[in-house]
Structure formats: C-alpha cells, structure tokens
C-alpha cells in the first residue's frame, strides 16, 4: 500500500540527493586551478546525465534485481520492467517502486561523481566517461547489491550500512586512490603550489552537500517518521562536530581555516552515513570528532607519500566511510532501529567483526576492480591528456570554453 507521507518524503529526498552532485561540482570546482574549473565541474555534471540514463536502463536491475548467488542482481528490472507505480514487495514497501528506484539513482550518480576528485586537472574527458560506465557497472552495482540487494552476501552476513558508508564512500574513496595511482601526478605536483581558485565556491558546494545529505541519510529511512527524524539529527550532529574539530586542528597548527572547516563537515557527513539510522543521535558527536581527526592525518599521510590523489577523496570518503562503518558496529542499538542490530556498546562485539568484514571486502574489491578497469581504459583510449593540453588547462583543451570571459579577445 502506497503511503502518501512516505512517498512525499522519499521523492523530496531523491531531489535533495540530486542537488548534491551539482554541489559536489562546486565543491571540487573551487579547489582546482582556474584553468580547470569547468573541466572539474563538467565531470560531475556529465555523470549526472550519464548515470541518470544507465541507471533506469540496467543499473537498478543489476543492483536490486533478483539475486544471483549473492553477488549481483538479475535482469528482471531491465528498462524498468516491473518497476511501476505500485510498491515493490521487497524494497520500501510503502512507496511506489519508481520512487525507490529514482532515490537509488541519485546515490549511484553521486558515487561515480565522487571518484572524479582524484583525477582532476589531467584525465581525458572521453576516458572518464568510458571509465564511469565501466565503474558503475562493475563496481558500484555489485557492491550496492552485496549490501542493499535482497540476498546480497554482505546483507545476509548482517553487515549494517544505513545510507552508504561502504556502498558509496568506501567504494568511491578507495577507487579514487587506485585511479590516482594509475594516472600519476599532475605536472608540477610537489614542485609548485596548486592553489584553489575560489574558496567561496567550495563553501557553497559544501553547504549544498550538507543540505542534500538530509535526503541522503534521513531519506534512507524510506519512511517519514521517527527513524527519519533520528537519522536527520544524527547527521547534523556529526557534521557539526567534525566541522568544529577540523577548525580546531587547523587553528592548532596555524589559523582557523574555512576550507578546513567545510572539509571537516563533509567528513562528518560521510562518517555518519552508514550509522545514521542505527545509532542514537548523540553518537554523532564522537563519530564526527574521530572522523575529522582520522581524515586530517590521513590527508597529511597522503601528502607525505607524495600521492597526487588531488582532492583527497580517499582521505575524506575512504577513511571517513571506513570509520563510519566500524563506528556503526560500536554505537548501533536496536532501541533506535529494530531492523538494525546492537553494537559493541550494547554488548554485541560480533557486530564489529561483521562491519570489519564488510569494510575489508569492499576495500579489496574496489581497489582491484578499479585498478583493472582503469588499466583497460589506459591501454585502449589512454587515461591522460597530452602534456600541452594539461599545461593549457582542461577547460580549453577538453571543452573549448573558459570560466571567465574578459575584454581581451
């Protein structure tokens, strides 16, 4: 039976999550050099289009179709067959199946877009499109099925992931690292500072991410009620705690940084994602604080190793998602969500082991699969732009546009 309140909330949530991808375009676009703003934003926007089509054609089916061996969904929902105005009998049974499908579509979109933060300012646009198609198909859809699909092997194992700590953030973060390793550093990386072109744009992007994340996490309750409210409060609390923590860290070393604070808030949102609907709202405070500290030092570690994972998708999403998944195993309580489980604090240490297993499996699979797919694209069409194209900047060399016109022509 379709419930009007649940449907209204889920449709609004889908729209909120949609807005996160243009938000990400601003967030990433402000952090690159001025010759690569449009190219960086275009990566996210193009994926909004690309995955928007692929998801209704086959992505939803591979993720949520009838289980095949615990690893992938079947073809029963290809081209939205059997996905209509009536609810699914398995997923979100109080809203039209179409509403659940489009909510999930927005998750697939932003996950693919997140990966692009690692390869900005040097990856060929055509190669990115091909890679994104392969990655959605071979990495995102299987992992979404493992964790959220009915019969998925991690779901059966009892690993908890409320809104995508493993599915979205670990897959994106770990894949970003693998792809950056394959692609190599930007020309001049380490030798010259690469200054963000527009920090106000980063702040607006982060604000849109924070706003959209309420749809992401509270929407993942799939119902409009107490659970959505609990997830909403946990989400805001963690974002606030992590933002303040990062601000404090930057202040200890130098000055209170706004780029640092908004980065921290995003990391807090990442970490609470798997936990939001399983933990008490106040758990958002320790989850957010620890997430910021882990990501901060993860970023320093990445820089010391001279890896040009340019916008730190691994440190923010990979590490934040990992901590969030493990924290779910610590703070979860069936008093919050009867469909969840108790964690370590409630006396169930086994849940932590299950979370650890899910983290390990997704890390390993995402890294290896991405490395393989990236290699394939590299030997066929090539991953990188030419040296000259990189020097000129990708806005002009890949898109024939510039961000800011002037009087000199």
């Amino acid at each position, binding site marked *: 039976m379709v419930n009007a309140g649940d449907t209204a909330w889920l449709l609004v949530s889908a729209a909120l999550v949609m807005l996160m991808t243009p938000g990400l375009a601003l967030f990433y676009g402000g952090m690159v050099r001025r010759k690569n703003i449009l190219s960086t934003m275009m990566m996210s926007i193009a994926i909004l289009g690309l995955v928007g089509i692929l998801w209704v054609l086959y992505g939803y089916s591979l993720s949520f179709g009838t289980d095949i061996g615990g690893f992938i969904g079947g073809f029963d929902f290809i081209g939205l067959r059997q996905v209509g105005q009536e609810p699914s009998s398995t997923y979100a049974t109080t809203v039209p199946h179409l509403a659940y499908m489009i909510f999930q579509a927005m998750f697939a979109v932003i996950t693919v877009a997140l990966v692009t933060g690692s390869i900005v300012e040097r990856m060929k646009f055509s190669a990115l499109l091909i890679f994104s198609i392969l990655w959605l198909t071979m990495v995102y859809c299987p992992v979404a099925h493992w964790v959220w699909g009915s019969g998925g092997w991690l779901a059966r194992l009892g690993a908890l992931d409320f809104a995508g700590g493993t599915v979205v953030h670990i897959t994106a973060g770990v894949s970003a690292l693998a792809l950056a390793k394959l692609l190599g550093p930007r020309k001049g990386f380490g030798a010259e500072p690469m200054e963000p072109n527009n920090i106000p744009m980063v702040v607006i992007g982060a604000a849109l991410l924070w706003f959209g994340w309420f749809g992401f996490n509270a929407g993942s309750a799939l119902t409009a009620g107490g659970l959505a409210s609990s997830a909403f409060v946990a989400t805001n609390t963690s974002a606030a705690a992590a933002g303040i923590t990062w601000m404090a860290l930057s202040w200890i*070393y130098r000055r209170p940084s706004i780029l640092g604070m908004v980065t921290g808030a995003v990391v807090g949102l990442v970490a609470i994602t798997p936990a939001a609907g399983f933990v008490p709202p106040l758990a958002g405070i320790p989850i957010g604080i620890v997430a910021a500290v882990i990501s901060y030092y993860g970023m320093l570690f990445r820089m010391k190793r001279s890896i040009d994972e340019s916008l730190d998708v691994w440190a923010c999403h990979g590490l934040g998602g990992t901590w969030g998944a493990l924290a779910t195993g610590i703070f979860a309580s069936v008093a919050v969500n009867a469909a969840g489980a108790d964690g370590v604090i409630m006396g169930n240490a086994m849940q932590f082991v299950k979370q650890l297993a899910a983290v390990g499996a997704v890390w390993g699979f995402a890294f290896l699969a991405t490395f393989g797919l990236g290699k394939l694209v590299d030997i066929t069409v090539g991953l990188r732009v030419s040296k000259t194209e990189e020097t000129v900047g990708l806005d002009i060399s890949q898109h024939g546009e510039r961000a800011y016109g002037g009087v000199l022509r």
Partner: protein
Amino acid sequence: MKKIEAIIREEKLDIIRKALDDTGYYGMTVTEVSGRGKQGGVTLQWRVGEYHVDFLPKLKIELVVLDEDVGKILNVITNSARTGEKGDGKIFVIPVDNAVRVRTGEEGDNAI
C-alpha cells in the same frame, strides 16, 4: 618630459592622489600589480599543510610630468607613501620622447 612610475601600498593610493591633486597633477594611470621584495610574502594554508605566496598585491601609479616638476612630485609621493616599514615600494623616473593629447592633437609639454 619624464614618466614617473611608483609602486605603492594599496592603502596609500587615496593619500597620494590627494597630495598630487594639491600639487596640480590631476591625471594618472593606476594598475593593480603583484610584486616581491624585501617585505617577503605570506604563508597560506590548504586543508592540511601550508604554502608560501611570494607575490604581494601592490598598485602602480604612472604619470608623465614636466622635467622641472620631477623633484617636487618625487617628494610628494615619497612623503605620502612612506610608513617606514619594508614594503613601502619604489619610484622610477623614465625619460619620455613625446606625448600626444588624442582629443586635440597637441604635442609635447602642451599635451601633459
């Protein structure tokens, strides 16, 4: 005729402009420039870690004056641009062959 090119602190522009006005020199061209010198740069931060920016924002004032006014104008600019700290800027004096007022076609001293 001489061209006076002065690199100055941004915040000194208004004072210099008024002082030149009082001396009878109304016309000038101002450009936003970046420069490095004894003042050094500034250290900024990324999400983690920091980097150094050597070039600081300055203004460049250009005006062409009569030979006999050069000393007076150098005094006016120096006195109003000075703070005594590193970074006050520099003034250059450059000979000019000719000048033309576009509206009337007047040349030489009459054009300035």
